[in-house]
């Protein structure tokens, strides 16, 4: 039971990290990133592939964050010229392009077979203990990122980002150039997603392209929107709520007799769809969000 709770906790914290990254991009700056999973995938594969070459895990994690952040640079530059609806579809298309490339370039990524046998974080400490160590490390990382986001939002830089989200033309009229800030924040959010990907890869120890479908992006969105975008509290509690939702549906299987595993997966997807619709309709500010969003 403790092992199970620990595993759920780790996945919840990974989603939390993703949601905090998206909160920087969308919550603060109103950059609509529908391609969260692309940066998550690149982080996971970067770290996984380097680790298989014998690179120390710490360096793998750094590389995952850096590479995902750099990958966000062209998209961030593109975002400067796009209205948010175009950016949404471009990032969605980008995430599918990344997934297909990972699937096709099997010389590098082993294609659909995926990468098995990735080294587990803290493996030398024994299996039960290593999960707890991963959990503790993630908790610390999420706490630092959450604290950093709060500090950032309160700083002049953060107020500038909020102003970009609220009224960009007014900001330009005041003589500030929002462009570089947008790109920076896009890269920062992507780097966090990449870091989350590395944690994922070295916790699950087996990654395939199938794990990086657009659904993951919308899990993160659902968490952030449910919790209330724009606030750290919203991102954190939203991800926890998401986890209750995802794990709860696993238990719901025992309550709904005669539904196969595949059927249950369909029903879970349906519930995600319905939740996205209902939240946007009736709780646009989320459960823990402020009123002004």
């Amino acid at each position, binding site marked *: 039971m403790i092992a199970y709770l620990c595993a759920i906790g780790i996945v919840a914290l990974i989603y939390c990290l993703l949601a905090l990254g998206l909160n920087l991009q*969308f919550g603060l700056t109103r950059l*609509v990133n*529908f391609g969260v999973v692309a940066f998550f995938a690149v982080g996971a594969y970067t770290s996984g592939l380097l680790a298989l070459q014998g690179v120390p895990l710490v360096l793998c994690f750094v590389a995952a964050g850096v590479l995902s952040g750099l990958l966000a640079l062209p998209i961030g530059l*593109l975002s400067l*010229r*796009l*209205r*948010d*609806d*175009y950016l*949404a*579809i*471009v990032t*969605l*298309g*980008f995430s*599918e*392009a990344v997934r*297909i*490339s990972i*699937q*096709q370039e099997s010389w590098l990524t082993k294609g659909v077979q995926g990468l098995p046998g990735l080294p587990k974080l803290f493996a030398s400490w024994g299996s039960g203990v290593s999960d707890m160590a991963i959990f503790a490390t993630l908790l610390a990382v999420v706490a630092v990122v959450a604290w950093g986001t709060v500090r950032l939002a309160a700083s002049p830089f953060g107020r500038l980002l909020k102003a970009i989200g609220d009224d960009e033309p007014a900001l330009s009229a005041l003589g500030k150039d929002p462009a570089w800030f947008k790109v920076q924040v896009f890269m920062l959010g992507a780097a966090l997603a990449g870091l989350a990907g590395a944690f994922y890869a070295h916790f699950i120890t087996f990654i395939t392209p199938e794990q990086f479908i657009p*659904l993951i992006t*919308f899990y993160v*969105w659902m968490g952030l*929107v449910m919790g209330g975008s724009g606030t750290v509290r919203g991102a954190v509690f939203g991800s926890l709520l998401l986890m209750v939702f995802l794990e709860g549906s696993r238990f719901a299987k025992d309550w709904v007799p005669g539904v196969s595993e*595949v*059927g249950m997966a*369909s*029903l*879970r*997807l*349906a519930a*995600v*769809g*319905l*939740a*996205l*619709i209902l939240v*946007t*309709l009736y709780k*646009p500010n989320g459960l823990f969000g402020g009123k002004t969003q």
Partner: protein
Amino acid sequence: MTWIDFVNLLINGLIEGLVVALPALAMTLVMGVNRFPNAATGDMLTTGAYAAVAVQLLGGWPLWAAALGSMVVTALVSAGSYTLIFRKLAGRPMVSSMLAAIGLGFLLRSLIGFFAGHDQRTFDLPLVRAWNFGGIRILPTDLVIAAVAAACLVVVFVLIYRTSFGRQLRAVADSADLARASGIRANGLMLCLWLLVGALSALGGVLLGMKAVVSPEMGWESLIPAFAAMVLGGIGSPVGAVLGALLLCVAQELAVPLMGPSYKLVLSFVVLALVLLVRPAGIMGRVQLVR
């Protein structure tokens, strides 16, 4: 690549383009009037294809009758989604409508997957041999697909450019406030638009299913190409959507010998990004008005 291969790829690209033009047109109509990219368009396609499969299975009807039935069903689903969801989100930030559209897409796709299963299906069609003109191969089925798609496009264009429904629609697209001030009643008009968009998507789904196979993922996979076609042609321009779809699909087919079929979607994405970078208003688009 000989010129005969080239012609075969060109023909295939044109037929695919005519099919993709239908969802691209459906998206561009909604984008022009309701001002959000309807990400559920792909799954409306899937809904249409499965509705036709269901009608064929239940009634043993010929495919054209099944297609008509599926157009009615999907039009109702589409109009229902407008009434229940998108009408209430008008005036909210665009992201709300997009998220709800993604949610609707998941909902439709998973309900289809739940009730119909994930196996691929095909329509009950007679098997025919391709005509061969000295190496240039043409499938009679493909000709039917192209003809139906083209006819459907003509009907929609007549509706948009030659009827009072179309005039009112274009008036609302240009300026919703001005249209309201001049006495256009938006509610009925919107319902008609969403019925039309649903029927258009359903036909696109049936044709796509005739060309390939019917699966729960089929519509989602054509979302990015349809969006790329719409952007390529210029958002809100119906003629542009059709031209964009033809251009994109021909380019995709001609690129297959170079990159293999798996990278088609990646090419769509690259085209999309390049067009937005170089000419954000698309080929036929005007400079977008600031909302």
